């Protein structure tokens, strides 16, 4: 396994360990609402596991295993290493930024309230109480609306901040 693949796979494993930990914290909070701040880890959980773990592992293994340039580039069998190194740095920087970006920018690519809409609109929303399980893709001040069952209704119910 070339060094660059080793770095990618090890970083992917770190993202896996951290992503599982964040997911476990959020799940434990759903069971016993003891750590409202844990739900702020959702953007990191999603990006860390989807991109930091799954995609980065695929990058690392592909760089290691895919057919090499045996004849065309004898001194550079895996192509230009600089681009591969850049992808490692950029991918991990992107995942690290995804958490704050998801929190501050209103959730790129995810609909408002996702994926807590069914949870928030269910009769059990009282187990967390107002403000205890915030929807992290909603603006500050938004508290949802009881009985709002669609994303459209959620958007209409937003309180201007």
């Amino acid at each position, binding site marked *: 396994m070339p060094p660059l693949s080793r770095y990618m796979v090890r970083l992917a494993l770190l993202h896996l360990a951290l992503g599982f930990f964040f*997911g476990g914290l959020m799940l434990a909070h759903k069971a016993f609402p003891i750590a409202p701040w844990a739900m702020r880890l959702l953007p990191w959980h999603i990006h860390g596991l989807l991109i930091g773990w799954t995609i980065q592992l695929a990058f690392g293994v592909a760089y290691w295993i895919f057919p090499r340039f045996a004849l065309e580039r004898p001194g550079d069998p895996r192509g230009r290493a600089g681009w591969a190194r850049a992808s490692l740095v950029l991918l991990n920087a992107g995942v690290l930024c995804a958490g704050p970006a998801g929190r501050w920018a209103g959730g790129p690519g995810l609909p408002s309230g996702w994926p807590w809409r069914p949870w928030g609109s269910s*009769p059990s929303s009282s187990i967390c109480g107002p403000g205890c399980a915030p929807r992290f893709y909603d603006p500050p001040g938004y508290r949802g609306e009881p009985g709002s069952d669609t994303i459209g209704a959620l958007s209409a119910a937003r309180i201007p901040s």
Partner: protein
Amino acid sequence: MPRLTRWFIRAALGHLLVALLLGALLGWGRVISLPPILTAATPVYFHLLMLGGVAQFIIGVAWWMFPPLSKERPRGNEALAWAVFFLLNGGLILRAICEPWVAVDPQPIARGGLFLSALALVAAGWIFVGLLWPRVKGR
């Protein structure tokens, strides 16, 4: 292919099938009104698909294909790897039952089951990372 990998892949395919069925059912929720316990299963759908299906498939193949640890124990501690299999699948099944249950009727037993599933899943992930880490090497 080692026996454990076969089981990981079989379980992954099983989770994938259940996730796709649940996803189809949740998709119908845009047309017909579904019971609250089913709409509360949206996170379960995502996790069955991505964790039970995709991640478990990767874990099984990585356990099989990654560079060997040594000649005597090429894949490391197999008992711990079986523990990963049971913790991951047990945790996911427990979560699939308890998460929608807590959402519609937060009984203490459902909450306890959900908390237990969180512990099982985190333990599975960390043990797997510990097993694979020493096998990420040059030769």
